[in-house]
């Protein structure tokens, strides 16, 4: 079901958690709400679920105002960060809970419920654990049971709060791929919250970056990564070297460097800026005209990438440079000349 959020505001006491958020989620879309803690992403998720009520604005489910609909009538599947499985119930009872609490008129027959539980257990690839209790399962298994429980009620939207937050790295990666496949299969409209940019970029159709209670930018993962609209988004979506810089006479200069770093982008007004450049967008160059010179401090090799720290006079932190595995890293102590055509300029 499509979901539309219009000008939603939420305060906790005197603290503004959301300051006017507009967002449209298409039916069947897989959306990530990405942001640091305190950015309002979890509050937005809980507002969609009906676990909180907005102070202003509207939340529409399929065109109908659901802002004041109580949570139990909203028909959302919510997966909690720590799963919130009912400890005294078996896995099967947990999954069927949402069906069993329905009024007699809407409750499926016993056999239909059992069949649905079996179907969901095989969907989450845990066919034989129906009789077990949550404490007998691993973290990854609990996560999948929680998801099955949320899907049992055929929710209008699936909401996942930091779904992989409590799992260790390898399980997290496996579950990510699995969730991607599951979504491709079921096409449930899904919104999940994460503070991990890698998770958001890998999993979501669309990433919504939030900061200080507003949406900074929203778009497809690659689009966001390539064209971040603000310094915050640039910095949050990956590692970046940040320089104070200025634009004058059609060129970008790094503060304290003689030669220009690059030609200024067309239409960029003169003035002071902060320049962001990704470690893998920097390139060693022989061209004498542009870029800057530094001294190689150390080179490490990790996950198929040479990670090289470069010291520059007048700058405290070394500049980070990433080179692909097939290239030979420069020796420590050698001088290196770097330039880049890809960078971001944001108001200082």
């Amino acid at each position, binding site marked *: 079901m499509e979901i539309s959020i219009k000008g939603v505001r939420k305060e906790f006491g005197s603290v503004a958690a959301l300051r006017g958020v507009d967002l449209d989620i298409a039916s069947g879309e897989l959306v990530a709400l990405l942001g640091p803690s305190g950015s309002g992403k979890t509050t937005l998720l809980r507002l969609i679920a009906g676990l909180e009520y907005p102070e202003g604005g509207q939340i529409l489910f399929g065109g109908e105002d659901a802002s004041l609909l109580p*949570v139990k009538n*909203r028909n959302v599947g919510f997966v909690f960060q720590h799963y919130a499985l*009912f*400890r*005294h119930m078996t896995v099967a009872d947990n999954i069927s*809970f949402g069906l069993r*609490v329905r009024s007699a008129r809407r409750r499926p027959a016993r056999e239909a419920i059992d069949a649905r539980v079996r179907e969901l257990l095989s969907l989450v690839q845990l066919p034989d654990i129906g009789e077990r*209790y949550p404490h007998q399962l691993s973290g990854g298994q609990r996560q999948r049971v929680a998801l099955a429980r949320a899907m049992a009620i055929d929710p209008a939207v699936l909401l996942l709060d930091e779904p992989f937050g409590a799992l260790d790295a390898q399980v997290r990666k496996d579950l990510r791929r699995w969730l991607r496949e599951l979504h491709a299969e079921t096409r449930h409209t899904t919104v999940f919250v994460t503070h991990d940019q890698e998770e958001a970029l890998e999993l979501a159709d669309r990433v919504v970056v939030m900061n200080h209670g507003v949406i900074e930018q929203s778009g497809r993962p690659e689009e966001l990564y390539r064209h971040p609209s603000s310094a915050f988004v640039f910095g949050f979506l990956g590692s970046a070297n940040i320089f104070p810089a200025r634009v004058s006479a059609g060129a970008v200069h790094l503060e304290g460097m003689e030669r220009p770093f690059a030609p200024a982008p067309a239409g960029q007004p003169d003035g002071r800026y902060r320049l962001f450049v990704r470690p893998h967008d920097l390139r060693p160059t022989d061209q004498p005209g542009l870029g800057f010179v530094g001294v190689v401090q150390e080179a490490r090799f990790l996950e198929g990438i040479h990670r090289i720290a470069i010291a520059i006079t007048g700058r405290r932190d070394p500049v980070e440079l990433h080179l692909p595995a097939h290239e030979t890293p420069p020796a420590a102590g050698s001088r290196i000349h770097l330039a880049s055509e890809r960078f971001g300029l944001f108001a200082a």
Partner: protein
Amino acid sequence: MTDTTFEAAQKRGRHRRPRNVLPGFGPALGFTTAYLSLIVLIPLAVLFGWSLSGGVAAFIELATRERTLAALRLSFGGAAIAAGINMVFGLLVAWVLSRYSFPGRKLIDAMVDLPFALPTAVAGISLATLYGPKGWIGGFLADYGIKVAFTPLGVIVALTFVGLPFVVRTVQPVLEDLDRQYEEAAATLGAGRLQTVRHVLLPALFPSLLTGFAMALARGIGEYGSVIFIAGNLPMRSEIAPLLIVIKLEEFDYRGATVVAATMLILSFLMLLAVNLLQAWTRRHSA
């Protein structure tokens, strides 16, 4: 060379029990056994010895006398009813104290412990005055034909008073630890408030409720001071078993007193055992 000594050590070790990593098991167990013997086991053994000094048949005859049975029935029945009342209202108090914040919450929280702290005789006298035919509550209830003081009902009132803190203090921490997310999860799945309480909250609280019940029950069975002032102590009607023991002691009927005591002990043990088994059973299904 190191290899051979290692192997030799291993071979030697094979004949020995593997040592526990926690040291001091022997002395600790020894002390525990000695201590429990001194404090619990030996006094109880002496009690049973005394009670059986006239033979088993005499024991049974004394234990099944009408007055003894009536007193036991009142003590155990009253304690069970009072513990049951406390289970319901203690849960309510614990709920209010842990879920809501309001002015005076700390004060009410402290008041819950008063039945612990108050000398039982003081409690008994206040209750007897309050619930007596001329007391505030007793006078009011008398208008409706309900007599509390000097009846079995009075016994229940006194036992409810002394048992309250047990349930509140065992349930409250569990309730405070119980994450709101379980209630929220139930709500997102479409459960109403009552369904959430019945299917999610109560099962989670049940083990601690049971513990509170057992403790209130145990306290109620043995309670003496607060009851005797309000009960009226009419034999066969409002006389509790601990009082019967005191009466027999005053009559120098030591065997009779120990028979009542031993019977109480056996019954208490069986009741607490049943509660514990029930608890173990529920725990196996939650953990």
